[in-house]
């Protein structure tokens, strides 16, 4: 069984240095932060943006939905009005535009939920309220029993204010 270790840092750059060091050694590191960190985390991990595929698929589905809804139902209910053709272009475009955005937004939201694995109310995962305040947390996992103290020392050396052995999730 592995014993995860958490280091709480006050400064981002010291945390990043520690994370790079630990990652190179072969541990799994997870960063917790109270604010979104963009370019600062580039040395640790670079992620691709998968959300855009969800948005694209949602947009296309919305487009098709709008076209089918307006044109299809207009063909089913042939009731002429106002001298317009059965399939007038402008309203179709307008409603398709709206449905594209609506389904696009909903798919983006679903994409976020799927990728970020939220909402999560299940079995307790590691979390400390301090990372929502002012501390940047570095959770180190996959440590062998005999290496724990070494990791703790390393975290201290890189300027962690607090180093805890956290409960096994």
């Amino acid at each position, binding site marked *: 069984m592995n014993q995860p270790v958490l280091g709480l840092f006050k400064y981002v750059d010291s945390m990043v240095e520690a994370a790079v060091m630990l990652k190179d050694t072969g541990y799994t590191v997870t960063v917790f932060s109270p604010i979104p960190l963009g370019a600062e985390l580039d040395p640790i991990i670079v992620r691709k943006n998968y959300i855009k595929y969800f948005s694209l698929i949602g947009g296309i589905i919305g487009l098709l939905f709008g076209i089918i809804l307006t044109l299809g139902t207009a063909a089913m209910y042939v*009731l*002429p009005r*106002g*001298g*317009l053709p059965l*399939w007038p272009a402008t309203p179709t475009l307008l409603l398709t535009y709206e449905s594209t955005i609506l389904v696009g937004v909903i798919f983006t939201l679903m994409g976020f939920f799927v990728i970020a694995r939220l909402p999560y109310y299940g079995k307790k995962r590691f979390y400390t309220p301090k990372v929502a305040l002012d501390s940047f947390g570095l959770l180190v996992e996959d440590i062998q029993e005999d290496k724990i103290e070494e990791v703790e020392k390393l975290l201290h050396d890189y300027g962690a204010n607090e180093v805890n052995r956290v409960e096994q999730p």
Partner: protein
Amino acid sequence: MSGILTKLKDKLQSYRVPGYRTKFEYKWTMVVDLDRCNGCEACVVACYAENNLPVVGKRDCDISRRFSWIRIERYIEGEYPDVKVKFIPIMCQHCDAAPCELGCPVYATYHNQDGLNVQVYNRCVGTFTCATYCTYDVRRFNWFTYKWDSPLEQQLNPDVTVREMGVMEKCTFCIQRIRVAKDTAKDEGRKVTDGDVQTACMQSCPTDAITFGDLNDPNSKVSKLAKSPRRYRLLEELNTDPSVIYLKRVMDEKKGHGSSHG
């Protein structure tokens, strides 16, 4: 490929209203001869009786909530001795390119297969869009639940729906009479002929100013009247393509009196 495209184009074209309106069996049209109209408002009364229109009372009349589907507009020109008074009865014009039909979100108003502009009372949700878009101000709204004092409820026409509160309504060209005429014609296995349908306003007009009939029938009275050089349609420049044709009043310009000479 181009063959398919032409076919598709033809198919779409056939759904365009002007194209497929020509396939209508009937094209109900009303001709109003303004030279004959003397503004007696008998048509208005007849309409009230035929179509179950409520009498709204003084207060609502004051704030322009009269219920008459047909109204006589009076236009007075000139100073006292040289006064010209003109009347024009205005009812729903049953426009072929009606602006009101575009506005309704629920198809409560649309164009039917006889070329009539239709109002379906029980589908109406009362968004007022049709009335706002109407350029002739002919639509009427049921502001309240109107009641007929006893024994007046006995004279309600059973063929016409009594409208609920919150519903828009307008002149229907006496659709119930058209229906009866079509019903009889169908039983006898013929088309509706000229003179089968009389609208309430036409029936009651003492000077025969109003004529109603089928414009598709070249021998009908309206077809002949519609060729008159005095013919015009109300606000024709708006391209609403109305089904009501007015025959202009000819006045003696030199004398300036309201007398008419046909």
